[in-house]
């Protein structure tokens, strides 16, 4: 089951997260929802981001495809301009560069959508944090629900409610 603990003071959230970790809850069971970034302890940092890797791969693929396309078109219909060689790295380099960067941007955005979870189906319902509060969502077993609720209140939660699983 999921519990949503409402904190009115965001300064209490990070210590509460640490206390829950010490109590044996894994970091992946704890999620914080807020309308602004809340600084959490280092142990809550997600695994190293794959965004740079995705961006580099997308850049290489897009740049490679762009270059291959330009070379193909120049072989398909050779136009002699300014005495330049038909297949010239110098003259096509600019477009290769731009489309490589375009690939990097596309890769970054896809990476962001994937890592943020915006592209993925969510397992649990998300609590609405409200404009002044921060919600800590905790996954726990139904048997522990009552005890965890008490503990969350001790940690500063103003209100603790169970959350439904997402459809």
């Amino acid at each position, binding site marked *: 089951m999921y519990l949503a603990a409402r904190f009115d003071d965001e300064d209490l959230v990070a210590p509460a997260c640490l206390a829950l970790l010490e109590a044996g809850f894994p970091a992946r069971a704890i*999620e914080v929802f807020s309308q602004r970034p809340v600084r959490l302890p280092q142990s809550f940092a997600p695994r190293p981001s794959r965004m740079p890797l995705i961006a580099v791969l997308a850049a290489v693929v897009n740049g490679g495809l762009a270059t291959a396309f330009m070379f193909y078109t120049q072989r398909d219909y050779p136009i002699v301009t300014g005495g330049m060689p038909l297949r010239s790295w110098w003259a096509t380099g600019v477009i290769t560069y*731009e489309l490589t960067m375009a690939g990097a*941007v596309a890769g970054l955005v896809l990476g962001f959508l994937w*890592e*943020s979870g915006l592209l993925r189906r969510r397992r649990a319902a998300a609590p609405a944090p409200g404009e002044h509060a921060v919600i800590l969502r905790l996954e726990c077993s139904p048997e522990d629900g009552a005890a965890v609720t008490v503990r969350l209140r001790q940690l500063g939660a103003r209100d603790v409610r169970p959350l439904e699983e997402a459809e």
Partner: protein
Amino acid sequence: MDRTADPTSVLGPERVARREQIFADLLGPLESVGRRWVLAATVSGAFVAWAAFAWAWQLLHGIGVAGIRRPVFWGFYIVNFVFWIGISHAGTLISAILRLTGATWRKPVTRAAEAITVFALMIGAMFPIVHLGQAWKFYWLIPYPNQRLIWPNFRSPLLWDVTAIFTYLSASFLYLYLPLIPDLALLAGRSRGLRRRLYRLLSLGWQGSSREWHALEHAMKLMAAVILAIAVSVHTVVSWDFAMAITPTWHSTIFGPYFVAGAIFSGIAALVIVMAALRRFLGFQSYLLQVHFDNLGKLLLLMSLVWTYFTVAEYLTIWYGKQPAEYVILQERVYGSYAPYFWAMVTLNFLLPFLLLGVRRWRTIGSVTLCGFTVLAGMWIERYLIVVSTLSRPRLASAWGSYSPSWVEISITAGTFAGIVLLYLVFSKLFPVIAVWEYEDVSGRPL
């Protein structure tokens, strides 16, 4: 969103009141349309409509209605193209540099700057199409084999332009959009009807989880690094439209950095003007402070000096070399028929900013804004000098000529200035121009 619970019991009434004030200040302009907004939108809309009429006139009667004649085949349209692409460097470069360097004072400034980038690029990218005359043939630049099975020539700088601007526009739009997502989710919770549906759709189901925040912050840092590389390349490519031609004064190796420096210079000027307008008309006096204008004033001064250095390097080399074809253009610019433009450019881009921004006591919000206007005017003149004075003095003296713009070119030019005002007015009624989630209170804590 849960707005019913009373948070004052724990947060304290002062902090809650401050947050409510920030919401009211930053989101308030979205909730109503005042008389001044309607007046500004009507006036700018009228200019845009007139420009559209002028363009329609040109489409109907041909490019001959413009003032471009042999030997000056690039006139106002290309001047405006270079100018607006330069302005577009306001947002992305400034926002990206400040984001990467961790300058916290950037927060109320960045979205305004990023929006300028997108709008200026949209306007700038339009000019090569206007310049084509037969604008409907623009699709020939798109890489697919046409009826004669000819592909576009990818070795041409004009194709470089198309690709560079496409990449920059896409990247700038995404760079504006990504940090807008949390604010869109916030707005979805505060609005009703069609707006609510629009904001919910655009917020992509943002929930404000720590995973989402972490991904957003990471993505923005990476995007800032990538977009810097794109922004520099775009104005370099624009400069290569000139430098790749073996035309006197254009065929210069420093044109790339010279154009990039000029672009950042004019971009900061545009940003200063927009900030002053936001302060004046949206009541953001508590958010856009003296310190923001002071810091941007210093950046403007720095870029003025960098631009002056490049200009001196360019002119001194031509003067010293005294190659006849180049020297005659220099003489025309400095002492001849283009001298009023040249000295106006020097005054507007160097002398006035140096005086007003160099003396700390004189670096006020008013003087920084004034310098924004002088620099914009000066940089437009600089583009005019580069394009027109060079083309009017080709190598053969028998082919020399002159250029004066027609009412069509003047109308379209004026329309684009009104166009960016109109786009900004609409943007300010749909989206918060200061990022609510990024804004921090004076104690340095998040909202």
